[in-house]
């Protein structure tokens, strides 16, 4: 042991001999971010991984403890990144990287804007359904898509009616329409990226984290129903026929009265046949049906 390492050893021993220094050293060693600034002070200058550690320290202390343990064990930065991302994702907030973590809880907007021309290059499979509402893909370099006045009131009335039906098949089609016309009641389903960027992000406070997890879980559940409902409309002609007929009826009502009395709506969907057990067709069965159709 040379003089330098001996000196280091002496300092280390001295730090553990004095109770006050030992406590300070323990805090610095095992909670290096004990004095980190509050998230309200975040100005973008903090390294993403450090910000992620700050976030986990306040929102998910168990992940923070794991991360510090991993740092103490000499893990690489990429391993630490993976631990933090996977840990936060496992809590119910999907996270691929820390790029925006400092600005609040990153949320993924799942909604669409029917007037946005960009939508129609992504969701080409929606064309047959949108055609039932007289909505056509934009031609050339159109800056917006013309959505007739009656479409939103009729689409939302249909969505509201169907999502309250006991037949899960109808309910799933209702959620598909609720997504299409941004009226599900869930922000992530109803807002597209632009709309979501307009509202203040949720903070990493306990209450906001719990709320975000609830919203994300609900949106995931809804999107499963949206996909099942869309598949049903796309692949089963009798469903499309019934939807078209009901759209026509509601469109006439709206044109005649200028509004729709949603509470008094009674729509006929008998053309789809009955569901013997009254329950949903399980997604896996339905996907199998798609496979058969293909």
């Amino acid at each position, binding site marked *: 042991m040379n003089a330098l390492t001996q000196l280091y050893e002496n300092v*280390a021993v001295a730090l*553990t001999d004095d109770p006050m220094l030992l*406590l300070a050293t323990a805090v610095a*060693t095992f909670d290096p971010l004990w004095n980190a600034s509050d998230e309200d002070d975040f100005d973008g200058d903090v390294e993403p991984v450090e910000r992620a550690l700050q976030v986990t320290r306040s929102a998910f202390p168990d992940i923070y*403890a794991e991360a*510090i343990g991993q740092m103490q*064990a000499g893990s690489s930065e990429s391993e630490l990144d993976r631990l933090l991302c996977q840990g936060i994702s496992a809590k119910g907030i999907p996270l691929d990287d820390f790029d925006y973590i400092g600005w609040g809880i990153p949320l993924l907007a799942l909604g669409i804007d029917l007037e946005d021309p960009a939508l129609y290059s992504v969701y080409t499979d929606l064309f047959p359904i949108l055609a039932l509402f007289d909505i056509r893909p934009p031609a050339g370099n159109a800056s917006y898509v013309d959505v007739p006045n009656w479409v939103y009131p009729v689409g939302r009335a249909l969505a509201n009616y169907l999502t309250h039906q006991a037949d899960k098949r109808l309910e799933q089609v209702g959620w598909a329409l609720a997504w299409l016309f941004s009226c599900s009641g869930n922000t992530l389903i109803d807002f597209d990226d632009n709309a979501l960027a307009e509202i203040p992000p949720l903070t990493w406070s306990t209450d906001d984290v719990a709320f975000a997890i609830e919203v994300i879980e609900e949106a995931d559940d809804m999107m499963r129903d949206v996909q099942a409902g869309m598949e049903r409309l796309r692949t089963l002609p009798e469903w499309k026929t019934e939807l078209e007929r009901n759209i026509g009826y509601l469109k006439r009502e709206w044109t005649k009265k200028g509004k729709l009395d949603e509470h008094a709506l009674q729509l006929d969907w008998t053309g789809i046949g009955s569901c013997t057990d009254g329950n949903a067709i399980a997604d896996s069965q339905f996907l199998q049906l798609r496979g058969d159709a293909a």
Partner: protein
Amino acid sequence: MTVNLTGLDELRACLASILPLELKGMELLRGQPHRIGAIAPVPRSQVVEAVTEIVAYTERCGAAARSLATLAPIPVLTALVMEFGV
């Protein structure tokens, strides 16, 4: 626990009677002083336990400091401050 303190001596005695803090992290460091600033082979579970305990401790300290910083002023009615003529 409610303690009625009537004087400085009692406050001093009260603080002096508090047992020294012993945290898991302190125990780990005491057992392996070379751990300070270096990598040491300690089971991850022990480190996680130490971190969890110290985070809770620093949070308690922070809360106490915030409470002290916002204590309401206490009027000292009987003190004589001759410099100000009262």
